[in-house]
């Protein structure tokens, strides 16, 4: 069991083309072994489900997919909850949104992380089932990984 107080949670559906970019990045980062004191998990949950997962950590970094109008595929965004609107999975049709979940947890005095970051990657395709990325995301994946890795390193340094 991972005992770190930092969780990196890759969220998305790994068999839904670019939608799975969060889990795939998370798996790559875990394999790289660069971050020794970080826990890595993946899933495609939202809202209340997320609360169950994050409540044991002081710091949580989500990696999710996002689609914005005219966004450039492969762009990596970083949000804090206060400036975050929605990414693909941290909003949910069958649950409450992540922000509402955080507000609910505060209201109910449930343990929640002190720091939450959302790293969102602009994707192209999330409507066709496929175990591989769209060509653009596939091509940019090494660069995306590098960017995300550097962002997480920066966040971890600040937390320490």
């Amino acid at each position, binding site marked *: 069991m991972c005992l770190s107080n930092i969780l990196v949670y890759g969220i998305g559906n790994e068999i839904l083309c670019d939608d799975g970019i969060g889990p795939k990045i998370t798996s790559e980062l875990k394999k790289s072994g660069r971050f020794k004191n970080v826990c890595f998990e993946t899933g495609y949950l939202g809202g209340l489900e997320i609360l169950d997962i994050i409540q044991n950590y002081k710091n949580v970094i989500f990696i999710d997919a996002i689609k914005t109008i005219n966004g450039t595929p492969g762009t990596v965004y970083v949000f804090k909850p206060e400036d975050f609107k929605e990414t693909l999975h941290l909003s949910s049709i069958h649950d409450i949104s992540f922000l509402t979940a955080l507000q609910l947890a505060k209201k*109910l005095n449930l343990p929640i992380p002190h720091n939450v970051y959302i790293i969102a990657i602009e994707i192209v395709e999330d409507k066709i089932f496929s175990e591989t990325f769209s060509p653009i995301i596939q091509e940019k994946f090494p660069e995306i990984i590098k960017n995300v890795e550097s962002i997480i390193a920066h966040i971890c340094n600040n937390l320490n």
Partner: protein
Amino acid sequence: MKRYTIDPITRLEGHGKIEIFCDDDGEVINAYFQVPELRGFEKFLEGRPVEEASQIVAKICGVCPGCHHMAAGKATDAVFGVKPTPTAKKLRELFYMAHFVHSHIAHFYALAAPDFVVGPNASPAERNILGVIAKVGTEVGTEVIKQRRIAQEIQALLGGHQTYVVMNTPGGVRKGLTEQQRKDIEEKAKGFVEFAKFSIKLFNDIVLSNKAYVDLILNGPYSLKIYSMGLVDENNKVNFYDGKVRVVDPEGKEHCKYSPEEYRNWIAERVEPYSYLKFPYLKQIGWKGFVEGKDSGVYQATPLGRLNAADGMATPLAQEEYERMYSTLGGKPVHATLAMHWARLIELLYAAERCLELASDKEITSPDIQAELPSKIPGEGVGIVEAQRGTLTHHYWTDENGIITKANLIVGTTNNNAAISMSIKKAAQNIIKKGVTVDEGILNMIEMAFRAYDPCFSCATHSLPGKMPLEVIFKDLDGNVIRKVRRD
């Protein structure tokens, strides 16, 4: 003519939208509900070993992975021509009851209750689960979180993971239950029953004690006289995991009762040019368009549809509530769309009671969890379960090596596609009138028409009914925007 578009703000792509067309007098002529559908899942299954299907389909979406896992497990049993052992069947059903408990709790408290507890016309800032908690107290909120978490833990224990479910094998399950685990689940299931009873009492106190709400349910713009579908056991009682699919007509008379492998004799599907989502209908009745009545093949497969299609509930407390609901609402069948929320709570109680029954059954700890696979060459199989949002059918064809050559899925919400479209149109026709200002409350009243179905479009639409950003655009005959109503 005016055209109203209810559309999530386009900052995020790929959402469903509602378009309402009105004549010059402001009367609604038609309404269309369009949803984006994830594509290619049936194709995705082709070429894969059928025994892996139940694990793969659990990844279709994160909302009801357990439903797809179970339907696929049953279809795979059928492909191999094997029946799970009694213990394996009980374990599967126990998992499935926990799945229903967590899902129905979420829908009621997070998505449905805000309309009633906080009020359909309340500001969106308040009309959400936080508003519900503010009204009913933090203790209830804590219990909602707790009971859902426990239901998820039971699924994770039995299924290997709460969403990446790896429970089923052809003719069995991968893991048994120890006596200590059984006792633990038994205690937890008692908590489910109490919480389900409390939820029904809450509905009674807040909704049924309020004449305006009862009027809204019975006499408001939310009623649809169509066929009802649901899985029933040998006594025609509601069953989520197994049995035959029963369909009753708008008067409650049985239209058919079919085994999974017969589904294509009774259900046909059609497409409309404006929607990716198919429109299933009753084959023997035929497609007559988006119309109500006995001569139209439109049906609903929802909590209310399941209760309408059955002769009762198989557990005592749920049966009492079943009788009370029909007695209160004027007898069977009920066509009031908003009564689905009540039906869903009765199903929650049934799932909780059934969970307790199964966990109290000591046979469930038997090590006999895997049936012997026959030497039959794999071929074709159909599996049907009730998903929270409708009857779920998986149909696989394989070659002699058990490799899937073709797959067909009819998912829960798809059954209700025509009914949802009709409910929206009817609500719009009754709510949007000449001189009525289309404001936030009006938007929500229309949303309530489809929210009752607990729809899951393509299992992964990325927006949130109830707090979904919406925009209504009023256009004149030339397509010029004359007014916008927007909700962030």
